[in-house]
Structure formats: structure tokens, C-alpha cells
């Protein structure tokens, strides 16, 4: 069975998929972490000054772009297959 998997290239494909998954998972964890830190601070600031809602929202979503980078890299990895 293993030999068959090697012969058909199934293992290669699997490894590529795992690589893509790691790319997006890492980026997502990084973005989530950053947003958590900013989000906490933003909610704290909003409790003092509710009009900071939009500034807080903007600051909170800035790290989101990191996930997009992850997505693009994952996409490039998948292209290898």
C-alpha cells in the first residue's frame, strides 16, 4: 500500500497540502494573537470613550492582512502540486 502511495504521488500531494495548511494556520494564529491584544485594549478604551468605537475597530482589523498573506502563500504552495 505504501509503495502504491509513493508510486502514485499521493504522499507528495499530502505533504503539499500539509504545507499549505501550516502556512495558513500559522498566519491565522499570528493574526488572532495580534487582534486579541489590540481588541482587549480597544474595548478597554471604548469603555472610557464610546466614540472610539470606529478607531478601535480599524486598529483591531489591521492585523487581518496577515491571514491574507498566509492564504496567498498557501495558494502558491498548492500550485506546486
Amino acid at each position, binding site marked *: 500500500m505504501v509503495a502504491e502511495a509513493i508510486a502514485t504521488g499521493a504522499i507528495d500531494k499530502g505533504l503539499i497540502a500539509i504545507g499549505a495548511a501550516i502556512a495558513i494556520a500559522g498566519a491565522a494564529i499570528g493574526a488572532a494573537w495580534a487582534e486579541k491584544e489590540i481588541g482587549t485594549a480597544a474595548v478597554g478604551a471604548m469603555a472610557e470613550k464610546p466614540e472610539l*468605537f470606529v478607531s478601535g*475597530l*480599524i486598529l483591531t*482589523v489591521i492585523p*487581518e*492582512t496577515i*491571514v*491574507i498573506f498566509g492564504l*496567498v502563500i498557501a495558494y502558491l504552495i498548492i500550485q506546486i502540486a
Partner: protein
Amino acid sequence: MLKTMPMTKIRITGLKSSMKAVIDILYSLKIMHLVDFNKSEPGFLDLGKPFMEAEELSESLVRIDSVISFYGIKGKANRIENFSEAKGHFARLFEDFSSANSKAAGANARQAELKQKLAEPMGRIKIDKKYLREYDSIAVFKGLVKKQLGQALHSQSGISFKLVEEKAGENYAIALFVPKKEAEKTRTLLLNAGFSEQEIPENFSEEKISQELACTEKELFQTKDFLEKLGKKNWQFLLDYKFFLSEMNEKAETPLRFGVSENAFVATGFVPARKVKELKNRLDKSPVHAVYIEFSNSLENAPIELDNPKLVKPFELFLDLYTMPSYKEIDPSALMAITFPIFFGFMLGDVGYGLLMLAIFGIASLKASGQLKGFSRILIWSALSSVFFGFVFGEFFGAEFMEPVLNRVHEPTQMLGIAVAIGFVHINLGLLVGFYNELKSHGFKHAFLTKFGWIAFEAGIGLLALDALQIIGIGLIPGAVLTLAAIAMLYLGEGARGLVELPSIFSNMLSYARLFAVGLSSVSIALVVNQMAGSLWQAGILGMAGAIIILAIGHLLNTALGLLGCSLHSLRLHYVEFFGKFFKGGGQKFVPFGQIKEN
């Protein structure tokens, strides 16, 4: 559209004796944004004092607010014609209200007190007080125990006793008489039963208290009924009078915003340029004399009134939430009115979801008011755009219902390319708007260096990339020269900050990849829901019912997710990537004197 309403700065000077009349006129016109007089300005002017009646008015306002909050009155107010009649009416009303209110409070307190008295457990023991005195040979225990005592005492041989026991809630109230020599033994027994010593209230009469309680309750009911009727009868009057009082109060306190000398006053403010004539005419025609109006071209700190056609109006909400543009800046509402629905539709891109949202927000825009109504209008446009892109992608609730022009599940490369291309266009549009803004505020040189610096940088990197990919064969030199020139321009225009931000222009464009990514996740969820329902469908009637439930819940959930995700992401692309290229904001909103505050 694009430009905010042109303003004119106005200064009205007049005799103090005509101040009140001028305030009345300005208040009724509702076209002037007053600028508070600043005492620190050099000159002989002092801060004005509120009119005499201000104190009385604010006192009445406090009173009427207490009545209004008591009844929770809300609604639309009408104009009051006869002030003195209304004033008298309110004085009587308030007297009735406060006396009834204090009566009700008193009755309430008495009711609570009587109820507590009635619930007194020791009151249940009915023994004449003279038997409860101290004896020489008999010990008396009065109080509460946790369990019935009769049995326990009987089983204790040798103790002779007399017990009065009444059930009181979970406990038992007791009066126990035993010979003194048995007192210690009895005490242990009582402690085991959870005894706590309590006095028996004097003159306790259940009947009398109940009677008193009924009486109080009746009084309370009557007072409450009276209060309720009073409120119902005067509901509209209270609204009207409150409105009237707040208007009067605002007018009476307006001199605080003026500068005054011994005999004259000066009021400064901004009026929309096209309404200046109206103001001048009104003041000229009025019987107010000795008023002098000056116009000034200084538009520093001019307030901002956004000036957009009806279709764009709802999109002003986005600036309300963010910040008003400054006076010379372009008002981006109209641009957002085009791009926001496009981005939203590109992400959601499903005929089914689009129609569902159209139905929901169509109804909402009819029923809602205020900000919610505006938001519903925005989402109606977004829903229409989703239906359009639904046809492009050929999707109906995730299912492919027609041959798509562009299949976003199977052609991700094209989708990614289109998304980033949209970003390229959007960001360069932002840079062009930014060029205009900088031109107005800092002149051509700065505008050219900062905004065209970015465009040249994009072009330079683009040439390098095209050459590296061997699409064009001009060598690396033209691209490199253009890139270096662009970097120099940015350094001259923005300083070191420009250099630090160099890569951001590309990360900003890449950020538009979310247009594709969010859409893909929305389709994937829809596909999963459809697959789950599809496999259940084959499993008989129960399976069909389950499939329908899964479809309904799954697609509703996905619509909600799509609504939240697509609007936030679309908004973010505008606020962060687009506005970052040109928008500074910080303008003050135009609030004409006399405009009713919304609350």
C-alpha cells in the same frame, strides 16, 4: 457631492437690547452654526450672561424631567401656543404629581412595615402577658425552634411541662414552662432543636394589623390609579411643554456663547453660503434695529455639512462613524456609495442570499428610523450588488444554477487576480483623491511628491517585475531608475516615514485578496450545508424534514455570517486601505443653532 457645503463666516453685532430678538430669529431660521465666544481672544468683550429667566426655566426642566422619566413618556412634541396657561397648568400638575407621589411612597413604606409585623412569628403565640412574667419555681422559654417540640418533650421522662406551640413558616414559635430544676436539661434539649430566644410582641393583634394593611393597600391602589390617570391625561401636554421648555432654556442660555460689552453683543458663526441671503433678509426685515452683519472669508475651523444627493445620503453614515472630512478635503461618501456595494456584492456574490437580504432590509428600511434606516438603505444596495455578482458567479444558495461567467470555486487564480486588480484601481483612485486634497492644503509640489511618488513607485516595481518575468524585454535599468526616482520623491515629500512605509503599498493591494477569500469561505459553507441536506434527503420522509431544517438553519446562519463578514471587510478596505491614501478628517459637524437634538 464630493465637496462639502461651502460656508461663510458671519459676525452679527448689535445692541444688547435687541439681543433677544436676534436670538429668536436665528433660532427659528436654523441655518447658523454658532461658534462659542472665546474669552481668551484679545479685546474688550466679555462672556455674555444668560437671561434672567434661565434659572427658573432650568428648574422647571428638572421638574418636568422627573415627571417624564416617572411615566417613561416618549413621542413627538407639538408647539405650545399659550405659554402662561401651560405654565399654570404644569404648576398644578406638578403639585398634584408630587403630593400623590409622596403619598404613594408613604403608603408603600407603611405597607412593608405592616407586612413585616404580620409575619412576626412570635405574634402567633396567644398567651396573656401576665403569665409570661418571671416565676420563683418555673422557668419560661420563649422563642423559635426548628422542629416540633411536643414529641421530644413527651419522650423525656420526668419533665413536667406546659407548652404552647404554633407553626410559623418553617419554624415553630414556642412558649415553654418547666420547673426551674429541670431548666438546664430542657435548655440542652431546646438547643438540639435549634432554639433561638425571642420576645413575644406586646399588643399583637393579627386582626387589627390585617385591617390596617387592607386600608393601606387600598390607599396605595387609589394613589397609583390617580397617578396613572394624571399621566394619561397629560401625556401629550408633558411632551409639548418639555419641548417648549428646552427650547426656551436653550435660547435663554445662548448669550453665554456670545461676546458682550456694556451695551452691545457680538455673535459669530458659520452659515451655508447659499443661505446667507436668507439670513440677511430676515434680519433686515425684522423690527430689530441697530444690527450690523459682517462677512468674512476666513474659513478656518469651518463646520462641515456633507452635501450629497439622496442616493448617496445613507453612505454619510460611514463618515459619521469615522470622522467628518476637514473643510478643504473631498467628501468620500459618493465614492463609497459606489465601491462599498461592489465590494460587498463581490464577496457575497449569491443570488439567493442577495434576494433574502433584499427582502429583510427592504422591510427594515420601511419600518426603521434614524441610523438603522440609513444602514438598511446601504444594505439594500449591497444586496442588489450581491444578486448581480450572483449571476456572474452563477450561484444560488451555494448551488450552481447556471453556467457561470466566472466560477469562483474552480478558478481561484483568476479570482485572486481580479481581487488584487480591484485593489490596484481602488488604491490609485485613493492616491488621485489624495493628490487633490494635498493640492488644496499644501500646494502642487507636496501633492506631486507624495502622491505621484507612490504611483511612480508602483510603476517602477511593475516594470522590474514584468522584465523579470520576461514579459517585456527592456532590461532592468528603466524600472530601477523609476523606482529609485520614486523613492527619492517620497523621501522629499514625506521624509523618512515615506521610506518606512514603502512596502505597505503592496501589502495594501494584497489585502484586497480578501475580496476573493471571504467570498470563497461563504461559498464553501453554503456547499457544505447543501451536501449535508442532500445526503439526508434520500433517507425517507424524516430525512427530508431534517434536510429542510438543515437548509433553513444553515443558510440563515451563513447569511448572517456573510452580512457581518462582508460588510466589515468591505468597510475595512475603505477605512484602512482607501482612506489611508487621502483622508485626514477631523472636521466639526455643522449643527445649526435651533436644530432639535435627537434623543
